[in-house]
């Protein structure tokens, strides 16, 4: 009797209901790339001036700052955090550096960049302290700091703009000069990406960031100093925003009170598009680059396709929502497939 029961169950056809969405997770980067190519083709047919050398260089230069910020945001999101203050940090560092160079016009551009980064790190340390040491939720801490930094920026600038004629040419030329044939902004972005690739994938601290994000409790049990990791992550985010502040001011040749206000949302959108999970623990550099590029291309293409600039915000919001929903569905498919595999 018992044997026949076992035989019967063995004869039953094994139902393999694997989720097709799960396949997307294997080809996420490829899919994103394919989407980018498709988008380029569509835009090119609508407006022939899209794929010209001039426009492409312009686009890549524009995307450089976004991609630098997206890298830092990726680290923050991996630790289950979020940083809404980067737009304000960027503006504050840009404003202070712009004021400094407008007074000391002989300041070496490299020193200006270092100064901006240092200001950013200081801002990041404050947020890291609030989040890691005191234990305030990242969303609330950064929402508060976003307004504090923005307010400080207005106080420092006294409502005045620093325009291009007040900046020395050496400073403005940070964004226009070239290093070995590549625009300096793009060059800096590439260097940062190479350093980040090594840091995230090949150092102990880098791996610990993922560990803290994917399971805080087990990370704590394995002896990882969470406070230290969170402090490092928010300081890196701050440093990168400070650096971006200098690059931003140099590129647009003006520092204002409301510089980059709301830019944090674009950065978060780039990360989510690139497959960084908002629940923490996962995210890849390649994905973030593609996500930043996709947004960069969209921002460049919409005006070329005669889409009203007033549509941009709604499109960005929809992209964020659709991307997180697709991410969730893909993750559900992957989890379901894993369960099936375990049963066999």
């Amino acid at each position, binding site marked *: 009797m018992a044997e026949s029961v076992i035989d019967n169950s063995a004869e039953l056809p094994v139902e393999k209901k694997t989720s097709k969405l799960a396949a997307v997770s294997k080809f996420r980067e490829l899919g994103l790339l394919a989407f980018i190519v498709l988008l380029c083709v569509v835009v090119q047919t609508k407006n022939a001036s899209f794929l010209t050398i001039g426009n492409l260089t312009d686009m890549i230069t524009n995307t450089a700052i976004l991609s630098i910020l997206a890298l830092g945001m990726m680290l923050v999101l991996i630790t289950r955090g979020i940083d809404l203050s980067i737009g304000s940090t960027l503006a504050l560092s840009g404003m202070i550096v712009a004021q400094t160079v407008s007074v000391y016009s002989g300041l070496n551009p490299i020193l200006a960049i270092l100064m901006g980064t240092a200001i950013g790190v200081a801002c990041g340390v404050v947020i890291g302290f609030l989040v890691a040491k*005191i234990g305030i939720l990242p969303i609330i801490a950064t929402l508060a700091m976003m307004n504090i930094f923005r307010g400080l920026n207005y106080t420092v600038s006294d409502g005045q703009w620093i325009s291009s004629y007040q900046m020395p040419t050496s400073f403005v030329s940070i964004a226009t000069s070239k290093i070995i044939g590549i625009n300096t902004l793009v060059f800096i972005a590439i260097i940062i990406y190479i350093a980040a690739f090594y840091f995230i994938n090949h150092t102990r601290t880098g791996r610990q960031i993922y560990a803290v994000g994917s399971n805080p409790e087990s990370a704590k049990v394995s002896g990882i100093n969470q406070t230290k990791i969170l402090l490092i992550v928010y300081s890196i985010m701050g440093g990168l925003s400070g650096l971006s502040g200098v690059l931003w001011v140099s590129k647009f040749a003006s520092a204002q009170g409301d510089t980059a206000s709301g830019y944090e949302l674009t950065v978060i959108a780039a990360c989510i598009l690139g497959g960084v999970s908002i629940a923490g623990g996962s995210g890849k550099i390649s994905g973030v680059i593609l996500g930043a590029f996709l947004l960069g291309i969209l921002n460049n293409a919409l005006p070329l396709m005669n889409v009203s600039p007033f549509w941009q915000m709604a499109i960005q919001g929809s992209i964020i929502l659709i991307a997180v929903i697709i991410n969730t569905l893909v993750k559900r498919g992957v989890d379901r497939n894993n369960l099936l595999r375990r049963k066999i």
Partner: protein
Amino acid sequence: MTMTQKAIGQNEYVQRTLKDKQEFSWKKFFLQWEWLLILVFFLVLVINTNLSPFFLNGAGLRDATMIFLDKAFVVFPMVMIMILRDIDISVGSTVALSSVIMATLYNDFSLPMGAALGACLLVGALCGLVNGLLIVKFKELSAVIVTLGTMILYRGIAYIILEDQASGNFPAWFSFFGWGNVGGMPFILIVFSVLAVVFTLLLHKTTFGRQIFAMGNNTTASRFSGVQIDKVKIIVFTLAGVMAAITAIFLTSRMGSTRPNVATMYELDVIAMVALGGISTAGGKGRMIGAIIAVFILGYLQYGLGLINIPSQTMLVITGLLLLAAVGIPKLNVSQKFKRFRRKQLE
């Protein structure tokens, strides 16, 4: 109810008693966060009176109340959302969208104003409903990211509708909402008081309110106890949308016209008020009355600072610091740290 339980590895029985209601004690009664808030409230009044001779002025105080109360409507549902351990940062955008749609329906589609007001409430409810549905259907997503997406989307739609224009020309009676008085009391204050009573009763005296607290303490346990957690969440987020629409009506009425960028960063003020009111960001704790006192503290503080010519940008810094202090100070656990410090000294 008494539960007995044998402690593992010990011979004696450990008796655990779960009390339904805690006994009243004067010490606990006076150690409540709300007393501190009332103290701070009077402190704000006293300091403001000393700083500016124009502060304690009946008409001035009444006008100030009219100005800061409009965003306070969202505080009620936000208390519930924070007790649920969620957050809603899309309320400012919901205010903008419902206000813009109301103005457009009246001006460009020549709907009667009453119908436009109804549409405003409907749009608000719809915005909240979308938030709630997304959060419930995709449980993996936190409310932070959903409302971040809808925050951009709703304001984006407002920009699509009105572009960079302003829309006004409302009928004369519409300004009653923002500036009207009933028997010497601002109309907005009366509406606020009524809603405050309704929401306090809803949160503290109904099954629905108890369910919110239960979910904030332990969502899984409340689901197993038969709480319809999805339904509760959707209702709370929809309420937030409706209250945002009410804010939109009062705000638009007070300003006389609307633009897509109205109510920017309202969420900071609202979250600051709720956090100051003693509602824990860890969920499951807090009282409506605390948030209501906090509304007046923040409102009169900003009004007083405005009187002594503090620019609105500095106000951002102060609001931010206040939010950090309200959230951070309870986490510092000063008294425990002090005790530990004393013990170390004694050793």
